[in-house]
């Protein structure tokens, strides 16, 4: 393999603390390979995490990291990037962290097009705290806090971030890591604006077990089977789509990005007597 990304992994902190078959390791491997592909360095990269299983990813990385509080990684990253725009700032959030407790920071960071990259690991529940339902848990599914089937509808988080104005939004499942890596790489390469990659993952320990989805390998097969490429959806009826995972690039547009906009504001302020 051309890029292993292993230079970003702190070897003596392995193995990962995640459960057997957890998708987080696959996503993290995609991320470090994409970082290597884009010539990122330990010194110029800051990885910001929140709380949750995916929020532990910084424990295995030898770049600059900030392990913050639950839901606030995006706001912390906003401060880091604004204070030192030369840094590459990558935010790792789960569906609980990013789409639920931190949902407000997510849509506002997308709206103001903060020049940061977010990798969301979406495993449809809170893993760390024991498999409770989150903002992306599908209607009807069983979790430790929806014993009779979940009564709420879920966010399509990629659509939400796109609607909020993000420069780049893509979604892929861990069943296709090379394509996931490609989307992460494109996000990292993009110079301006808010970049968001949703990695559909699995939680065999909680969500998988509660909903009888089988072992890790079977769950990944399930993701593959339920994936539908975004360019094919025009031919399909909407109600059929709702059960599918729409993968691909939701949006890739040129925007100024907030750093550029604020530099213009600084210029205006400095020219004003």
């Amino acid at each position: 393999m051309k890029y292993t990304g292993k230079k970003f992994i702190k070897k003596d902190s392995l193995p990962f603390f995640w459960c057997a078959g957890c998708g987080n390791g696959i996503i993290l491997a995609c991320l470090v390979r994409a970082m290597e592909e884009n010539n990122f360095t330990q010194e110029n990269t800051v990885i910001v995490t929140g709380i949750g299983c995916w929020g532990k990813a910084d424990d295995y990385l030898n770049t600059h990291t900030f392990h913050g509080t639950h839901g606030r990684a995006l706001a912390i990253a906003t401060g880091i990037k604004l204070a030192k725009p030369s840094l590459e700032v990558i935010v790792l959030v789960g569906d609980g962290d990013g789409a639920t407790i931190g949902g407000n920071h997510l849509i506002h960071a997308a709206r103001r097009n903060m020049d940061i990259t977010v990798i969301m690991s979406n495993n449809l529940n809170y893993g760390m705290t024991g498999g409770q339902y989150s903002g992306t848990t599908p209607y009807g599914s069983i979790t430790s806090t929806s014993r009779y089937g979940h009564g709420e509808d879920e966010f399509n988080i990629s659509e939400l971030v796109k609607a909020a104005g993000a420069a780049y939004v893509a979604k892929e499942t861990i069943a296709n890591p090379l394509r996931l890596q490609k989307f992460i790489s494109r996000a990292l390469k993009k110079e301006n604006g808010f970049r968001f990659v949703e990695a559909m993952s699995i939680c065999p320990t909680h969500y998988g077990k509660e909903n009888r989805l089988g072992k890790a390998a079977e769950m990944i097969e399930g993701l593959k089977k339920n994936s539908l490429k975004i360019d094919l959806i025009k031919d399909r009826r909407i109600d059929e789509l709702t059960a599918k995972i729409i993968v691909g690039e939701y949006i890739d547009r040129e925007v100024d990005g907030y750093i550029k906009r604020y530099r213009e504001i600084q210029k205006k302020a400095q020219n004003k007597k």
Partner: protein
Amino acid sequence: MKTPKVLIDYKLCKRCGICSHFCPKQVFVCDELNGAQVDKEEDCIACEKCVIMCPEMAIEIITQKEE
């Protein structure tokens, strides 16, 4: 091409069975007691599916060139 070498780091393997499930050539056998074992290394085509699918970054494939 010589047979690729399939290396599993057993300090990292958690016996999830993903590698053996996704290997197109059934190179691995896997059970919950022993985890993944390289069974038919000679069948490996070095596609590296196992490397990218392993959630523990525990597998490495070394391809050697013909002398």
